[in-house]
């Protein structure tokens, strides 16, 4: 009986251990921001890699997202005679919710898993230890630079995804009706307000931070051995994706409370 209870408690216990470990890691990483050296060069390099390598994926997905969403919603709006609200409806749903979440999930898959695998592999091959013994703190050089890179780049990538999704939507609308880009954009931006943009932007900054942090955490504390590299990459994606949905839920609730 006690064994059964222990077995059922075990996943919960593991989750709490994971949350505790991640919290301590977060504090350690944030402390690195207060100490020199700031590793600007590495930070820029990581930001370039995070942005440049994810951009094509984000662009293609954003385009398809806008196109498909418009094609799916349009018949419903045509049926109730409200086709004119289509651009506004698409832009609000993309900018407030779909754009940030889909782009962040893609970043978790592309960047987060990459960090998990790369840092885990550095650990397995003792590169992190080599850095430490030569007087370079790997938390600063390897982790902090990557977390800052994703915190800066994920919001930029989300903006790109949003813009391309709206372009995709314009093309989908033009498949059935002839509408100028100017008119489409006017209709798309009319229902948007500051309360749509600010929470969405703040949300993407948090997504970026969490993607970099969880990817690095999973790599940094992975076990030794080649199998651990795969596990670190896999767990980085799973945990970061889960965190994105939880953060999204929390931010939506806070926004609702603040703006009614």
């Amino acid at each position: 009986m006690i064994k059964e209870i222990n077995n059922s408690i075990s996943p919960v216990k593991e989750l709490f251990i994971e949350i505790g470990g991640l919290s301590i890691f977060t504090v350690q990483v944030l402390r690195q921001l207060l100490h020199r050296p700031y590793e600007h060069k590495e930070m820029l390099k990581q930001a370039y890699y995070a942005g440049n390598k994810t951009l094509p994926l984000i662009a293609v997905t954003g385009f398809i997202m806008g196109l498909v969403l418009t094609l799916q919603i349009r018949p419903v709006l045509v049926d109730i005679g409200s086709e004119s609200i289509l651009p506004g409806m698409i832009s609000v749903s993309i900018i407030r919710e779909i754009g940030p979440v889909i782009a962040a999930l893609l970043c978790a898959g592309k960047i987060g898993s990459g960090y998990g695998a790369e840092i885990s592999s550095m650990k397995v091959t003792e590169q992190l230890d080599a850095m430490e013994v030569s007087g370079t703190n790997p938390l600063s050089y390897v982790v902090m630079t990557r977390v800052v890179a994703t915190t800066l780049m994920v919001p930029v990538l989300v903006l790109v995804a949003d813009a391309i999704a709206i372009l995709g939507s314009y093309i989908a609308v033009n498949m059935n009706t002839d509408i100028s880009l100017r008119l489409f954009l006017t209709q798309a931006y009319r229902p948007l307000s500051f309360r749509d943009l600010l929470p969405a932007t703040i949300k993407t900054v948090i997504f970026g931070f969490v993607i970099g942090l969880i990817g690095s955490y999973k790599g940094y504390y992975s076990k030794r051995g080649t199998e651990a590299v795969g596990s670190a990459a896999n767990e980085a994606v799973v945990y970061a994706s889960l965190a994105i949905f939880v953060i999204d839920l929390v931010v939506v609730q806070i926004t609702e409370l603040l703006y009614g």
Partner: protein
Amino acid sequence: MDEVIRIKNLYKSFEDNEVLKDISLSLRKGENIVVMGRSGIGKSVLIKCIVGLLNHDSGTIEIFNTDISTLGYRQLDSIRKRIGFLFQGSALYDSMNVRENLEFPLLRSRFLEKTDKNINRVIDEVLENVGLLNAKNKMPSELSGGMQKRLGLARTLVLRPQIILYDEPTTGLDPVTSGEIIDLMISVQKKYNTSSIIITHDLKCAKMTANNIKLLKNGVFYAEGTYEEMKKNSNKEIAEYFN
């Protein structure tokens, strides 16, 4: 002779597994100590404790007369910069080429003025010492096992360490290449007057480099002496190891 490392009553365990029990050791300036023993006995753990990569449970580790367990991260870093560590798998930064692998610790050191000219001079000198001057722009993956070991050694040398800790420097190498690495270790010691702790299973390496050999078993040093003394030892277990 001056003591550069003094270890007293060192204990280290991983959960229930007590790996090091009451280890004491003293390394003097210019001396080479070779630690031998079976795989998984805790030899690497010992040198990782010395350099602060692993925290020991109890006992003291003094490096240059400073107890490292009392030091903060930054103070420990300044001690670490005087210690070179050659990892078993060389631990080269695989995203950097040969030159960048050497430049990385140099850019973070304080012992030379960081001009391009100075950095190039130090890198060229060290690469020439290990015979890799022509491989400056190659990536670690393009180097053979022996070359990787030499690059690993070059990386420990760029910071002009006073102590070098070698973790199985000849493991996985053919006899000729392993002989080259041993010669290199000896020439490095002569040129830079370093003190070393060498973890090895290689009898040739022990014979050529050791001033003192210590055999580790069940967490304690159970025998020590020069290579000749160990070879002549009548204890069956030691004799098995050295013959």
